[in-house]
Structure formats: C-alpha cells, structure tokens
C-alpha cells in the first residue's frame, strides 16, 4: 500500500478516486481471469461519468457486474461504495490493491466465457452524462455480500469495497 500526503483540493480528490477506481476494477478483471480490453474501450466514458458524479456528490456506488452471456445470469459482482469527505491540509491519498488480490485468490477465477459491465448507482438528482444510459442490476438472489473495507482514500473521499459470492 502506498500513501502520499499533500495539500489538496476537492478536484484532486475526485480525479484520484476516479483514476484508482478504474485501476482497481481493471486489476480485478485481469486477476479474475477475464480480459480488461473491453474496459479500456469505454475508459473515457467511464472516467467522464464517475468524475462528474463524484464532483456533484451524486455517485453512491460503482459496480463491476460479471455475468454468463448465454443465460444472462449473475456470476459475480464487486461493489465500491463512495463515502464523501474532504481534507485539505496534509490529506493522505492511498490505495490498497493487496486486500483485493487476497479476496480474488480466495474466491477463485471466473470462467473465461463470462462477460462484464460497469454499472453505477446514483442519486436521482444526478446530471446526465454523455455515453451513459439507465439500466438495472442483475438479481443477486443466491449470492451473499462480503464487505472488505476501505480500499481507496483520496483525501477523505473514500471508496469501500465488497464482493458478492454464490452461497454454496
């Protein structure tokens, strides 16, 4: 885990958390046995949406939803819940990718035939962003969520991670 401390603005916090959220999601996709190439095709749209909604305070959660394209059923899901805060002087910026790696190893790889998408949950007041449309998350029936705590801190603006695993 690397920590950096400096004088901060909220815009820096938003840029940092957006950047690290996408990096973590990319790493989860790769470590779970899927190809992050699809994520990079949409990188600018994803970055634009997450950054805009963090800036307005409307972003509640970012989800990486993994599904079976043959039956459209959920295979697994990662959630990043946003907690709004801000610290200007001596703000600590850090990312903890190791804890994510630990839980990915614990739950094992997803089948290579799985597909994935990024979905966000926003407050109803959120502004529209080019490239984004409304959707509904797949059912989590038969799954249980495990929270693993804060994984990104951008000077008080933080993201806590959790993942859904199938009840065995």
């Amino acid at each position, binding site marked *: 885990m690397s920590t950096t401390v400096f004088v901060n603005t909220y815009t820096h916090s938003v840029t940092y958390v957006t950047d*690290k959220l996408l990096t973590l999601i990319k790493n989860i996709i790769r470590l779970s046995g899927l190809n992050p190439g699809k994520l990079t095709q949409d990188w*600018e749209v994803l*970055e634009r949406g997450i950054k805009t909604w963090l800036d307005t305070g409307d972003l509640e959660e970012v989800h990486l939803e993994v599904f079976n394209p043959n039956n459209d059923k959920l295979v697994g899901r990662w959630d990043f819940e946003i907690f709004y805060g801000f610290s200007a002087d001596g703000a600590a910026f850090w990312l903890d990718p190791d804890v994510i790696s630990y839980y990915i190893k614990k739950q094992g790889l997803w089948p290579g035939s799985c597909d994935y998408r990024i979905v966000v949950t926003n407050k109803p007041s959120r502004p529209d962003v080019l490239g984004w449309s409304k959707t509904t998350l797949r059912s989590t029936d038969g799954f249980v969520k495990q929270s693993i705590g804060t994984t990104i801190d951008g000077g008080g603006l933080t993201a806590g991670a959790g993942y859904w695993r199938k009840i065995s």
Partner: protein
Amino acid sequence: MTVIARRIKATPARSPSSAWSVIVNLLAPKAGSAARVELENIAGIASSLISDEAFRNSPAVVYGSGPRVRLYCLYDEEAISGENASESALSFVPTEGDWKMSLPCLAEDLGWVQEALKKKSSQITARDLATAVDDDECEAQQDAKNLGIDGEAFLNS
C-alpha cells in the same frame, strides 16, 4: 541520436485521459491527421497505463524519422506543483513520416495490452516497463531509411 523529453502532469492534477490528450497534442498536433487518429484510437489503453503509473519512471518513446521523444508522467505532489513539468510544444512533428511508439506497461498487464494494441495500431506497441527501448531498433529504422535507393540517381547513372 537526439533525445527530447517531456514530463506531463497526471493524477491527481489531471485524469489519465486528459494526460493522454496532452501527449497526443504534442505528438500529432494536426487535427484529423492519420497519426492523431491512431493515437486517439488507443486512448483507453494508454489511459489505463498512465493510471497504473507505468509512465512514472519509464517513458513512452516515439522514434522514427526525427529526434527520439521520451514522454514521462508526473504523479502526486509533483503533478500538483508542476515544478518539473515540461509540456511545451515540440519544434517538429514526431509522427510525420515513419514513426513508431513504445508504451511502458506493467509486466502483469503486458499480454492483454499487446493484444489490444495490435487490433488498433500498427505503429504503437507496448513493452515491459523494466525494459528500455533498444537503441538498435531506432537506429535500424533510421538506417533502413538512409539506405533506401535513390531511384532517380540510379536510373540516371
């Protein structure tokens, strides 16, 4: 061999895609040029590499017909203060004529990044960030250009 370096402010001063836009403007300033389109086409892949901080100590390298250009990114305090940033326009267009670009990449991402780049570009490749761009590779391209037959002179001899 002449080498020119630029250091571009990235996270948290700029998002990775904004940092890549600065790089594209430096390398291919002419709107609609083939090189600019090619660089813009790989924006998502390049942004993910910038986001991984692969550009921190290992540069993207552009080489070909002119001086070699090395592009680094600045992160954290350095990005905010901008003290070591150098983003001024180049006095030449590095993507005019024959050019290639090598992007630094984390070893664990190299496989899918190379595969994704291959689908989108014939000029831009990725290398393990622990590996320097081979001087011979750049010079071989320059030599190949210099050794081209001057058709007019040949026919006139």
